[in-house]
């Protein structure tokens, strides 16, 4: 060996130290609140990640343009989770230790959020996530109540699926799930709710992604003669499965989460294939001013409709809710005080507001209730939201919202 362990370590430390130096020089200055955007730019979350990140940046810019929040402007540090817990953990460490962020926003898959949350708990800063796993609501993961979830839990999604299937009068549902926590979480949540109502699930399949064909999987489900297939899936696999399904000539209906049954799906398959598909979404208030603002920003940044990325609407809301809490907590408040205000600005009571500027103004005269772009955003005691769900039916290649389900 040419050099020993101590030299090695010293070398490593020195190397990384120099790399980090420029950051340290402008550590805590009073006029800025640093936030970390920790999104899945690559890996399984890549179709959503860059949109999520851009919306954090855009929303932060909006807040800053409106004169900042609580006398401070937001500074965003962005990192890629690579949709890998290991990379996410190091990224979170970097955001916390090097960039000294006061909040981490936008972790996507449950695996990532579960791996990052112990770190944000240790640092005493909030973690805003868009993951569905029920484990994120409770201890040990959320023992400090610093986890805030902008997405409905898998169980809530499952309940909404069951309500919609019931309302539509389906009798013989089958399920197909992508083999990961969220996919299986949705279909199992559905099964629980459906069977609790005395129903029966006629077939269920869990599949691995990236197959050249899903014919065998489909056949197994179709053999049970379902009148509807409930999916726990993503865009790419849904595209292939629906195409192959249409080519079998079967006529059953589909209930699919809206992150998979989105405009890109219709674009990929054409109006005939997607006709009649029921897309279920936690409500993105398309009619609301908050959504209009988000949609405009998304169109401008990515050239696509805001509806095509439900997670980006959530990250948009994250920044605005955080900024409103900062404003409510007043100048110089620390992150604990700001976090304590989150329930207030995004609870059921108060003047309804839809943008940061509006909320900032309304806060002068009393409590507010931010009605978000992704949902109405009222946190419960676990930091979870219980959005309403919409059932949208594809007609002529476009999803038209039919009705709203409350769970």
């Amino acid at each position, binding site marked *: *060996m*040419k*050099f020993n*362990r101590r030299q*090695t*370590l010293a*070398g*490593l*430390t020195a*190397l*990384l*130290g120099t*790399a*980090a130096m*420029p*950051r*340290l020089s402008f550590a805590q200055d009073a006029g800025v609140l640093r936030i970390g955007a920790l999104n899945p*730019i*690559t*890996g*399984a979350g890549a179709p959503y*990640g*860059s949109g999520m*990140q851009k919306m954090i940046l855009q929303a932060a810019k909006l807040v800053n343009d409106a004169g900042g929040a609580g006398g401070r402007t937001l500074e965003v540090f*962005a*990192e*890629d989770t*690579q*949709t*890998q*817990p*290991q*990379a996410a*953990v*190091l*990224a979170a*460490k*970097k955001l*916390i*230790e*090097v960039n000294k962020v006061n909040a981490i926003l936008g972790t996507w898959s*449950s*695996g990532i959020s*579960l*791996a990052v949350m*112990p770190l944000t708990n*240790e640092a005493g800063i909030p973690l805003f996530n868009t993951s569905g*796993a029920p*484990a994120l609501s409770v201890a*040990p*993961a959320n023992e400090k109540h610093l986890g805030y979830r902008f997405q409905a839990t898998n169980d809530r999604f499952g309940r909404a699926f069951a309500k919609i299937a019931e309302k539509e009068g389906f009798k013989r549902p089958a399920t197909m799930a992508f*083999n*990961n*926590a969220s*996919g*299986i979480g949705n279909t199992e949540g559905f099964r629980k709710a459906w069977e609790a109502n005395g129903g029966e699930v006629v077939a269920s399949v869990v599949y*691995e992604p990236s197959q050249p064909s899903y014919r065998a999987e489909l056949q197994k489900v179709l053999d049970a003669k379902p009148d509807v297939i409930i999916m726990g899936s993503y865009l790419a696999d849904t595209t292939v499965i629906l195409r192959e399904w249409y080519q079998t000539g079967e006529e059953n209906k589909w209930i699919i989460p809206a992150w998979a049954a989105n405009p890109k799906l219709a674009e990929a398959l054409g109006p005939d294939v997607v006709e009649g598909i029921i897309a279920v979404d936690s409500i993105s208030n398309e009619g609301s001013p908050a959504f209009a603002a988000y949609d405009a920003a998304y169109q401008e940044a990515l050239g696509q409709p805001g509806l095509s990325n439900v997670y980006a609407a959530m990250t948009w809301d994250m920044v605005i809710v955080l900024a409103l809490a900062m404003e409510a907590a007043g100048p110089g408040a620390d992150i604990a005080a700001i976090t304590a205000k989150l329930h207030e600005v995004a609870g059921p009571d108060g003047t309804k507001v839809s943008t940061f500027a509006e909320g900032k103004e309304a806060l002068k005269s009393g409590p507010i209730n931010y009605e978000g772009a992704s949902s109405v955003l009222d946190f419960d005691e676990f930091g979870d939201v219980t959005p309403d769900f919409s059932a949208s039916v594809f007609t002529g290649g476009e999803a038209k919202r039919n009705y709203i389900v409350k769970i």
Partner: protein
Amino acid sequence: MEAYLIAIGIFAGIYLLLALGLNLQFGMTGLINFGHVGFFCIGAYTSALLATNGVPVALSLAAGGFAAMLAAWPLGVVSIRLREDYFAIASLGFSEIVRLVVTSEGWLTKGVQGIPGIPRIFPGVSSQMQSMLMFGLVMVLCLLAILAMRRIVKSPFGRMIEAIRDNEEAVRSLGKEPAGFKMQVLLLGSLLAGVAGGLYAHYIGYISPDQFIPFITFQIWMAIIMGGVGRISGTVAGVIILMTFLEGSRFLRDVAPFIPEVAMASIRLGVIGLALMLFTIYRPQGLMGDYTKR
């Protein structure tokens, strides 16, 4: 800042354990193992499952290493006699099967939900202390592994495996059977990978199947190739390069803010690819490699 560096140090130590095992297998014996992450996975899951069921961590870590070693045995029996690149493909397939089993057999592994709340190795200390102690433990284990490697290199066994690497036919004509030695090397490397897996599981606190993809294996490969195959100093240097690169690329944006975030991940992948190509073409002996050999 220190906590971030210590975190990097812990990951580097875990990678070093993996790389030392791979260096023993490829660098010293010529065994192309593309399934290293499979043994890492087995170690992580064994240790995590035992520890969450109340087994003391010291014991579960050891069991993780042992389980990985045990799993390597059937792979070796089936494929160790194959030509080197066939073994490479077989081992890659093995690691994918391990991942699929862990994903699918939820009754045992909690499947896609993963295992949260894996106990820390040192109970009842502050988080900072935890990191320091963890760092210390990882470093001690690395040191032990390095010492063991040096002993192996200098032993008759070490000369034998190097002979197998350089000329398998010659070894065979001397009446020695290379397969047996290769098997021992495979088992040893897997033991290290298993222990590394256990450390990883207890440090990160949450494991799920998608943490154990083949890309991890290839990162380790890049480390030993850039550092210099067959040399322990090369392995150490390679892991440092790998970690500096993986984490350093995060800071690249501070220097070059014009690179869009989205491009960063592709750039990272591209640089790993480019490094693998350039090093195999222009500097196959790696940074620390021996010019006199190969």
